[in-house]
């Protein structure tokens, strides 16, 4: 069974600076890393391949330098990678991004499962994975913390919830987004790194994908950013002190006073 994993190159958060005037990230000069959640997607893809055979193909939409991120996932054992890159893709919101990625998936060909990280650490929307599934009209499960069973036709997963987890059975092909509890990503291998250096990573733009400029990038986006700002801190905080009993008493009487309990 072939698995497609979607990966995004994101700025390394420790080095990020904000442009004071526009309130946007200064991306120039910051090192790109693979969105950490996507590494769990890659690992899960590789495990499925080890179990069921087939290939793992990585797909990324991004600027030309996202090629680095794709080469890196090849070093972990991914069989092939495709970069969706075109000037027209710039400024895409989650709608345009998922539309573009869905087109990419269709062009890659037959697959049993698409795996995405639960969200990207730069945008933090968690919308692209489900968005791709909607475009492709396949079932999806977000926040998967465990694959219980997988065959070529069905999948049984545990979906992480705030108060426990759900067990869901899905027919394939399907899409899942994964949380970090799902696995521990492996280290790259030397043979993988050697392959990563020489592997051919095709770049597909609007013409290869057969998609119009109106559907992608800023033009194809439903979101318009009017203003980006750093929120003011609101609310007061208060530290309760003293012995544990005293702190608990104080807390209970406060909560009681606020009619919370």
């Amino acid at each position, binding site marked *: 069974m072939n698995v497609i994993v979607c990966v995004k190159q994101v700025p390394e958060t420790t080095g990020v600076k904000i442009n004071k005037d526009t309130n946007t990230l200064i991306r120039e000069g910051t090192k790109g890393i693979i969105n950490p959640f996507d590494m769990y997607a890659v690992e899960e893809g590789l495990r499925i391949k080890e179990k069921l055979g087939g290939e793992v193909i990585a797909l990324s939409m991004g600027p030309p330098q996202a090629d680095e991120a794709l080469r890196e996932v090849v070093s972990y054992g991914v069989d092939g990678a495709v970069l969706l890159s075109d000037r027209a893709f710039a400024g895409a919101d989650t709608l345009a991004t998922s539309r573009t990625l869905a087109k990419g998936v269709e062009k890659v060909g037959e697959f049993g499962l698409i795996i995405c990280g639960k969200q990207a650490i730069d945008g933090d929307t968690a919308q692209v994975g489900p968005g791709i599934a909607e475009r492709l009209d396949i079932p999806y499960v977000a926040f998967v913390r465990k694959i219980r069973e997988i065959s070529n036709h069905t999948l049984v997963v545990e979906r992480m919830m705030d108060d426990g987890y759900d067990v869901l059975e899905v027919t394939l092909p399907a899409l899942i987004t994964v949380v970090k509890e799902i696995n521990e990503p*492996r*280290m*790259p*291998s*030397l*043979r993988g*790194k*050697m392959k990563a*250096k020489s592997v051919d990573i095709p770049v597909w733009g609007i013409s290869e994908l057969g998609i119009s400029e109106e559907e992608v990038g800023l033009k194809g986006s439903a979101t318009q950013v009017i203003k980006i700002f750093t929120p003011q801190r609101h609310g007061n905080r208060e530290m309760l002190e003293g012995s544990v009993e005293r702190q608990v008493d104080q807390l209970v009487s406060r909560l009681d006073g606020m009619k919370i309990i």
Partner: protein
Amino acid sequence: MDYFLTEDQKMIKELSRQIADEKIMPARAELDEKEEFPWEIIKVLASSDLMGLCYPEEYGGLGGGTFENCLAVEEISRACIGVSVCFAGTGLGAYPILLFGSEDQKKRYLPDIASGRKLAAFGLTEANAGSDASGIQTSAVLDGDEYVINGTKQWITGGGEAEIYTVIVMTDKSRGSRGASALIVEKGTPGFTFGIKEKKMGIRASATTELVFSNCRVPRDNLIGKAGIGFIVSMRVLDRTRPGIGAQAIGLSQGALDTAVSYARERKQFGKPIISFQAVQHMLADMAIQTEAARALVYSACRFIDSGAKNISKVSAMSKVFSSDVAMKVTVDAVQVLGGYGYMRDYPVEKMMRDAKILQIYEGTNQIQRNVIGQELIKEYAGKKDNR
């Protein structure tokens, strides 16, 4: 420093470093404390292809040489030489087969070793035969198509954990040092058991045990090369693996230097970071000078060996002696830079200092290495006409 490594060599270093940082550093204190064999880490090294660096591709390896292997050893050692000796020890066990084994033996054993599915170990030392290996008593007597082994090997790295053992035994005591041979013994062979596991000062993640043979029978086919060349096998193998000890030493020194410099930048006394004191700076400078000099020597020795050179004993011994002496000094000084904190187990340098000592002892003590170098000098200079 740029040592003009090839792309592949840089990749080996980078990958080994990543594993050292992400997998070994966080685990090293506990492995040391619990004296636990680092199987989890060995598995990672195996699946990353690093266990196969120095074996030909036809046996499942990556076709590298001494240098490639040493680059990995160096980076792993930056985090922990208790782990790196487990990694390098399997190479020591495999080298007799690689250098002297039959095609059949290579096909049978090397792919499992190169993939890391099985570890190998090398057994020469005995209770009464350390520096003077010619004193070994373990015997192997031919009985039909089998050798019957009796005796006890001591302090064997990887004992109990490895599957494949190359042991040096006396097959003909009457012939003295020409009566030793190298045999392959697999774990699980009846009559082959493991004696005490030593409690050590350092490299405590590694296992050091006795190999006990009592009427242990192995097929005659397990003989490496031919009967009588056991010591030649040992010497040739150790000549090639000794730079590996050098690589452990430079990695360890680098790890100690890294810790010392970053600590000295943070620690404030008399209102200033201690790195601003010249006495501390000079100590760090000396640590850096010696580490770099040792690295240059180890790398040169590796390249010399990989060039196919014949007379490698001297250079190989030099790389081991110099860098292990450096590692001892650098780790002692690293503790000094950290002061009382350095003496505590909360910081890694006390372990590094304990670990360093073994490098001056195993694979031939530094005194014995100096003997080798001295002998080589005598030979070299005897051949020259005018030495002035």
